[in-house]
């Protein structure tokens, strides 16, 4: 019984939250890694693209709710998602047209594109705030829990509870699907191969009859779709706050790098590594130890949570030392 309790405690406080958070990071990292892989720069505006898209989704969700449309146990936002993606795509393509294309034509160094993306980041950042303000917004409706703590306790009679939220499950599923689809798309489909070819050698792609502008457009479209989906799922699980979408950029970058830039599998693996190292390394084992029969005064905590981010970075650096271009051998410009 106590062993079961210990197990449930770990599941509830470490495994499930870290997995969900990892999936959120992974979904964001997929977008970053895609842009890096094809267009060869680190897109700092990705976090704010997520925020902007989510803001649009929220507006549409409100509209739908006002019309009385809902999805039953699933959040209404899922219905609004396609519209959000469509609108964000338009914006992102516009930005590419107005900003990035110029540097692409000029064959500017990647760092210039990175700096341009910082500029875009600032603008999107302000834009999102203009559109929806700075307040924290909750827009999850439908059922919140698949399994709630109380239910679980009632079913099992254990003293530890377990919860699994709809949004967590949703994120995990969507991430798995997105990764699989992206991987197949890039490696199997004609358009996907054209994208890889373009990223490998732009001029030669041209000579093969690949239309570079099409490739770029397609890349942005997929990236926008990923960003809005990631942003929405994240917002459903936590809540929407513009500021947080900038903050999440750092762990997203960490995730895409540790997995190996340009590789969808790497992005997903990276997301989970970052998430699990944050949660697991700072976890105090006292309670578990108690269930297993060792009572102690100390917390049995390796490091305090203040250092959680630091820990995940230490792990990241160690990984990079042994695998200099990430777990899945990413690209480097």
């Amino acid at each position, binding site marked *: 019984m106590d062993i079961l309790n210990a197990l449930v405690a770990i599941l509830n406080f470490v495994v499930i939250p870290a997995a969900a958070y990892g999936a959120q990071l992974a979904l964001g990292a997929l977008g970053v890694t895609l842009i890096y892989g094809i267009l060869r720069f680190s897109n700092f505006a990705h976090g704010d693209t997520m925020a902007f898209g989510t803001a649009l989704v929220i507006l549409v969700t409100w509209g739908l709710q006002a019309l009385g449309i809902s999805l039953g146990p699933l959040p209404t936002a899922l219905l609004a998602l396609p519209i959000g993606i469509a609108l964000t795509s338009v914006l992102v393509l516009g930005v590419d047209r107005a900003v990035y294309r110029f540097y692409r034509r000029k064959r500017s160094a990647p760092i210039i594109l990175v700096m341009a993306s910082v500029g875009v980041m600032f603008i999107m950042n302000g834009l999102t705030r203009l559109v929806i303000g700075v307040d924290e917004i909750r827009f999850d409706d439908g059922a919140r829990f698949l399994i709630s*703590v109380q239910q679980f306790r009632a079913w099992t009679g254990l003293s530890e509870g377990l919860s699994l939220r709809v949004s967590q499950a949703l994120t995990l599923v969507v991430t798995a699907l997105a990764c699989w689809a992206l991987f197949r798309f890039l490696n199997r489909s004609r358009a996907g191969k054209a994208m890889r070819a373009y990223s490998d050698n732009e001029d030669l792609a041209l000579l093969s009859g690949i239309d570079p502008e099409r490739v770029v457009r397609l890349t942005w479209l997929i990236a926008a779709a990923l960003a809005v989906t990631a942003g929405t799922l994240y917002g459903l699980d936590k809540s929407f706050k513009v*500021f947080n979408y900038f903050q999440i950029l750092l762990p997203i970058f960490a995730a895409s790098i540790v997995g190996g830039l340009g590789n969808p599998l790497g992005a997903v693996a990276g997301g989970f590594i970052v998430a699990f190292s944050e949660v697991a390394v700072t976890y105090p084992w006292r309670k578990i130890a108690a269930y297993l029969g060792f009572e102690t005064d100390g917390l049995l905590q390796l490091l305090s949570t203040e250092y959680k981010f630091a820990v995940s970075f230490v792990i990241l650096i160690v990984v990079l030392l042994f695998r200099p271009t990430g777990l899945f051998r990413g690209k480097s410009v």
Partner: protein
Amino acid sequence: EEIKMGISLGLTGPLESISPAMQKGAELAMKEVSDSGKLLDGSTIVPVVADNTCADAAASVAAVERLVTAEGVKGIMGGMCSGETIASLERVGVPNGVVMISPSATSPALSTIDDKGFFFRTSPSDARQGEVMADIVLERGIKSVAVTYTNNDYGKGLADSFAEAYKAKGGTVTVVSAHDDGKADYSAEVAALAAAGGDALVVAGYADQGGSGVIQGSLDTGAFETFVLPDGMVNNVLAEKFGTQLETSFGQNPSAEGEGHEKFEALAKEAGFDGTSAYAGESYDASALMLLAMQAAKSSDPKVYKDKVMEVANAPGEKILPGELAKALELLAAGQDIDYVGATSVELIEPGESAGVYREVDFKGGKLNVVGYR
């Protein structure tokens, strides 16, 4: 005369969501005085707003520098966050001899700072809040708590003073751990707090920042059900967000009972903002105090009126509520004493900070209810 008054708030950055109400609160007082036409023979007040970003001391100094040296303001309602306030006070306020009254910087460090008499605050030092909070928690029969605080001088200071007081009074603190604001995820913090255990969780954070993230995580995983919420957390937003999930939670924030507060709320509503938003009342009071001190000193020169701030704030004199600034100006002009009460029952103690009347609140029925004052 046209008198410029500075307002220095974190309009962008980690506290951007409570700043607007604070700004409106401050401007409300200025407008009231301006409209009355009674300040220093019909002077008008022009508010000048600066964005101090709350987090970036350098940007704050630059912004306040602009207020003082470029705009020539005669006083500043601000700063907002303790760290940034200390910087702008030491670098700009004191050297230029400009009065700064902060509505919300609550760090104990500001009590001992060498301010040459230019700094006041309408909020109490967190040293006091810790004690009050410890009393409330113990009185509710909770003997063991976990503490999480937002990792800045405010959170740290408050958590420390609480933990010290609580232990001294016989409670057990299972863990004191920090959380950073604006992080993407708080699973690790929640897991650590849950593992440490405790009958309740003290969240010394910000309602629309990491604080609510931690609460959310705790509720979802069933780690804690009861939360103890100090000033940064006591907020309508929180009640709206979590509703009945906070049934057993309680807390306190600096705010005095009485008509003052209600009157302010009504005024705020009329002006189109939420008067119960954190530190909106304090902002109103901070502005009002400066303007009243000018009237009392018969001068808008901060070097002169700084000595009158304590006088107008405290007894003896006629009590002044929000919306009665015109009356106060008249009284002062007539050479009479006033005792400014304002939205937050202002009572300034040495060295120029609010004595600290706190209201105890709980969240029964998914609403923020005031239980009592202490």
